[in-house]
């Protein structure tokens, strides 16, 4: 069985130690997500159909559902528990629902995805 890719920090963004490599972009399904276990709880890392990547705390603002398990479309994900739709870019529930999900800065370089986990996530 494949081991998950761990703590792969490379030189590119690795010059800045804040950026933590979490694995290859190819390991995240298009219109899907993978989970990264972080110090403050699970982080959902999404990949959209146009290969944009977003990282959000894996908790729906409604009842705490794991957003990483939802259906991804456009730049949004539908929570698997009660179908709230979360805008990945804004880190917020789509109207008329209200609520925010903390976001983490993401970069993709040479096919590797990096997260910046310093301090508090962006509100």
């Amino acid at each position, binding site marked *: 069985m*494949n081991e998950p890719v761990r703590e792969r920090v490379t030189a590119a963004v690795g010059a800045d130690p804040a950026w933590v490599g*979490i694995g290859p972009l190819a390991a995240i*399904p298009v219109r899907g997500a*993978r989970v990264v276990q972080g110090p403050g709880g699970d982080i959902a890392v999404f990949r959209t159909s146009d290969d944009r990547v977003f990282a959000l705390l894996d908790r729906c603002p409604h009842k705490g559902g*794991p957003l990483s398990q939802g*259906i*991804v479309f456009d730049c949004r994900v539908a929570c698997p528990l009660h179908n709230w739709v979360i805008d990945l870019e804004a880190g917020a529930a789509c109207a008329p629902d209200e609520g925010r999900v903390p976001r983490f800065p993401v970069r993709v370089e040479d096919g590797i995805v990096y997260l910046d*986990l310093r301090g508090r996530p962006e509100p």
Partner: protein
Amino acid sequence: MSEREKLVVIGNGMAGMRTVEELLALAPDRYRITVFGAEPCGNYNRILLSPVLAGDKGLQDILLNDLDWYAERGITLHAGREVTAIDRARRRVRAADGTEAPYDRLLLATGSLPVVLPLPGADLDGVVTFRDIADVERMLAAAAGGRRAVVIGGGLLGLEAANGLGRRGMEVTVVHLAQSLMERQLDAPAAALLRRSLEARGLRILLEAQTEALLGAERVRAVRLADGRELEADLVVMAVGIRPNIALARDAGLHCERGVVVDDTLQTFDPRIYAVGECAQHRKTTYGLVAPLFEQAKVCANHLAFVGCTRYTGSVTSTRLKVTGVELFSAGDYLNAEGGDELVYQDPAGGIYKKVVVRGNRVSGAVLYGDSSDASWYFQLMREGTDVGEIRERLLFGQAHVGDAGHGGAHAVAAMDDAAEVCGCNGVCKGEIVRAITSKGLFTLEEVRAHTKASSSCGSCTGIVEQLLALTLGGDYSAPEVKPLCGCTGFTHEEVRRAIAENGLKTLPETMRFLEWRNPDGCQACRPALNYYLLCAWPGEYRDDGQSRFINERAHANIQRDGTYSVVPRIWGGVTSPAELRAIADVAERFEVPAVKLTGGQRIDLLGVPKERLPAVWHALNQAGLVSGHAYGKAVRTVKTCVGSEWCRFGTQDSTTLGIRMEKLCWGAWTPHKVKMGVSGCPRNCAEATIKDLGVIGVDSGWEIQVGGNGGVKVRATELLCRVKTMEEVLEYTGAFLQLYREEARYLERTAPWIERVGLAYVRRRLVEEDDGRRALYARFLDSQRRAQSDPWAERAQAPAHTGEFLPLARVG
């Protein structure tokens, strides 16, 4: 930025602005929009003029779009400037004051004009029509100073005007030419009840009365009838009908008949010009109600935005009278002109009259007086052409009496307390829904769902929410005739499936492209539906798209509220063995499963398994010969059995053997919604087969096959499909039934509502009467099963390709 195209809208009323709103939602930047309106104000809700006249609402309450609304959207509004000419060659319009505007596309929404009878004295002061705010202001001024009013016309508008003036303290006489009031909407008994009720409110009503002249020097003082009677009047309201306002279009040379003639895309004979609302004539019909106009606006906006190929195919309309305290509803062939059966309930003393016209077991019309709480239900049955053969004898008593367990009595929505809970799933009460409808200006079920969450989960309160909409909005409520699959398309489920089959569409992107999906990624509603339709249409050929499945089906386990999963191994026919039980117990202990529970379908549920451990749990179960129970899917789930003739002293048939054979035949099939089956060995029915999607009951001579039961939110007992002699026949009917359901039901539609929609008679015809058809369905089912019956747990427990779904990508920090 390239120059935007110019859209000019003539008419600042409900039809024109609804189209603009729909257009802005689809393509906010496509056009520079200019609106001309003859009235000097923003867009208001014309339907609510009656309550304003009656004093139930103020003018501010009925404004839909104030001037800021136009400014915020960059729309140029010329309020109070009437367009007098369209120059089609130069593509410009010109208003009475000389204002000109060029257009690339032109939308006509000029509405209609009140008919003014060509009577002597029709131009006297104090003679008004009832159409716009200015008319209402004139009437209110007259009501303040005068005493007596005569309303000519006893139709919908005339009676609303008469009621309003009566409420303002005038003595009102209604003069009506026909034999009964509202003869275009009501039959004679309902009209008689209405007359009695209006007379009790102090209105005087003269039927078969023809107006001959309006008398007075400058100001009207009396109305003379053809029989010589004179009625004193300080105010005369002419409410004898409306006619489409087409003068402008006709002068511009556009083809007009009664209205401006449009095709199914709302386009006139000039392809740059569209027309919507009361001025448009579509398939020989003009409409004077709001619901059709909203449907037209949607289609027209689609075409103006270049995003779709939806078509408007006409509307089924209904009428409600907005007179406080009078409940009145009418729809369809209420006079029964086409020779159907009339089901009638009449209680003259109680002031209640209900007539439902049924033709060929379909509702074709209805008149309700005094109690219209089931109006939207009858209207829905009529629009959807639902087979009512099985519920005819209870039809008149309303939806609460057709086996809709758990909701009886909740339907008197008007009488419901504001704190009464409507949506049990999301905890939404009546008051919240009504407040949302009025304060946020909601018009449709979808909007109420989005804003309040009511009716957005199990859907069993949909009827009540629709009634609240109808109650709160009156005639404004527009129930869509056929619902599109989702917001990404205008096509219905059926149209999408047909397109997939007829055009050989074999992938999701191909299907969305071909059907011009508004959103190339789709959404969480349509992607699973399309994935299923493609899977069903092309067995073995279509490549399942995991990212378009709900998590339960992608992970082959049920997600729980804490994000863990439950695992339910298949126990064929509910018959197990010590070895299987021991293996399940070992797995539960070894993986420290927090909870073990017996399910209603005779299975064992292992609850609380973290996602990353699922493959290992499955592997361990596989080794004991246990496979996926599909308890997580829109799929064939369980066949529940009783012990049957092998052990039971009452048993007449071997139910366990048949149950196991049915489950071996059907497992692994994806279906529009979950499917549960049951086999009882005798009519005592210990396996509760009569609340299953398909239930089989052993009788002395063989087996009874029952279909369409449901034990969920709406309990529904099965109906008998047929009786057969052998197990082999049961298997063939079962496979054929499932295949028919798979091929024809809408995604997420259980067998019970599906059968209610198409009628049991249809299912019987396809399965019982047409032997060749049944065999063909069965053959297609077997063919599909050959490719579907592969244990998804084994595939994932063994293949490393799948581990990505189950393991975290990394651990950091």
